């Protein structure tokens, strides 16, 4: 393909390295929840707990999950682009291959869906005796 120059091994290595680092954030939403519940419990104030619980449920958790997922998705997309470049049907036109690569990239940038039970890893913290549980 004219104008296409991809060192597959080199690119994959960089992606894998980034993916490995990013994977350290898997389950972060659960850590945030545990810290938040503990902080709210320490205040001993229901109003503050309600505020923190709302912020967690409607902001911190979805943002954490989606941020982590979107990072993963970027790496998946990058790998897909290289895979398409490498494995596309030899009879596929350069234009079709290019479109496939662009499509894979675009797809990887679409916002992921989110639901309240989704997690990037690990389990939600157990309720602490006498403490708030979100």
């Amino acid at each position, binding site marked *: 393909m004219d*104008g*296409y*120059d*991809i*060192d*597959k091994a*080199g*690119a994959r*290595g*960089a*992606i894998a390295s*980034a*993916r490995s*680092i*990013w994977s350290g*954030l898997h389950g*972060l939403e659960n*850590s*945030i929840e545990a*810290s938040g519940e*503990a*902080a709210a*419990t*320490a*205040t*001993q*104030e229901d*109003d*503050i707990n*309600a*505020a*923190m619980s*709302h*912020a967690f449920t*409607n*902001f*911190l958790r*979805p*943002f*954490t999950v*989606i*941020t982590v997922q*979107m*990072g993963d*998705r*970027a*790496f998946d997309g*990058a790998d897909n682009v290289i895979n398409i470049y490498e494995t596309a049907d030899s009879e596929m036109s350069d234009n079709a291959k*290019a479109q496939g690569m662009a499509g894979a*990239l*675009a797809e*990887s*940038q*679409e*916002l992921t*869906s*989110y*639901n*309240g*039970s989704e997690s990037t890893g690990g389990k939600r913290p157990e309720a602490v005796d006498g403490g708030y549980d979100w």
Partner: protein
Amino acid sequence: MSITGTYILGVTFTDYLPAELGDTGSMDTHAQALQDHGKTLTDTWSDARSAYNGVKPHVDFPGVEDFELAFENNTQATKETLAEGLERIGQAVKDFSSAVSGFSSQHANLKSATEAFNDLHPYYYSEYDRTVAAEQGIVLPTASECRSSGKRSDLTRSLRHGKDRYQGIIDDCVRAIKDSSPASMPVDKPFALERVEALMGAYDTTLAWVGRAAYIQDHNGRLGFLWEFDQASVSTFVQNGVPGWTKVHDKDSWLGAVLPDRIKDRIPNVENLGDANFAKNLDQKYAGFLDGMQTRGKVYWARFLDELPPGAQDWLVSSTTRTSDFFHSNFVLNESTGKYVAATTLMTGKKLPSLPQSLVRKIDDLNLDDKLKALENSKFGNVMKHGGKALGVADAGLNYYGAYTEGYNEALADNPHASEDELRSEGVKTALVEGTFETGGSIVGGVVGRTAGAAVGQALIPIPGVGAAIGGFVGGMAGEAVGGWAGKHVGDFANEVRKEGLGGAIKGLFGG
């Protein structure tokens, strides 16, 4: 003669204050942990980005910039918002802890004073009682050993002051936490029934006034409404200003006579935009622009800017101070319909209801664009109907509103049988984009950059609506952002406007 005295009720400390204050040491520890999570996120993101940048020497193909920036575009905006939220929420708890520490001595003193009062003899004896007792040889406790209504009143007054102070500390913390959330969900019931009823009561009036309004909602106590327009109506929009608004600058019109200058100065006068001919052939210009939105790169953007008359460009530059706080709009291109959708918030500077009824009636007489009244029967009119349910949701204490509510409502309108989880998911997705704007600062640019890189269709560019001409142009720019490069610049523009010209939060997100 018997001596009865007057029984003085004891005082229950916990009617005013908690028996024990929270553990400030534990608060600080866990608040710091929350902030540390944000730092971990930020550091990990930086490390991952550096690692991902390692692809650059290994890839070269047309459009490689999107590939190289994929990770950044996908994560930067939400990462920054999240880290900032964690920092703020952690700080809110720390501030609460500090305030509690400062309050602790007063708490302890009040608690001791209450215990001391309750330990007093529970009867108050008047001078007469004491005289009679002395005559009968009865020894009564001294006045200082007895309760009295005066002592009780002094104590309860102090306790009320202490309660108010402590509640203020709590309120500050709650407010800070709420402000930390881009979705800005209220935590109690600020949308109590009276607010909902006021809102719904205002709806009928305002629907008639605007003509195009399909969805009225409360944005922090201000009216907001949805409207949509296509290329042709944008053209008319730009040429004529907001229908009826040209009358603002006509001294002979009732509107020109009734509106104060401070408001009129904030409404663009198309005739003063430099080149009176610029509005000609707008249909063609917009057609070109809409086509251009599907392209990428600086060339089209620069060409488009060059097409703007000097006055319009000046307006763009100076609008940071002139857009005011009167009308704010967000514009987004709905690619499936080819129409723009605008979410406009009426920033009257006063809370609802603030429109003089006489003014509302006069505006109603303008017979604004009948075509747009069809919106009542459109999807967005339908949203409005479901908005009633959303208000019911708020009333029920779930309190999703603003961006979150809108996403929720959209999903509800699309699928009335959707599960709560599905609706919440849509609400979150909406808030994810819109909410980042509310957080302000440099985040908007990031969001725009992300959406710009993310194919098409979902770009939401919060733009302060300046009513007529610039509203149309800026709406177009919002669409341009879908194409790519321009997004960051539009975001920067929006940031600048927000920081310099917009005092209140702009809410109102309507997915394309």
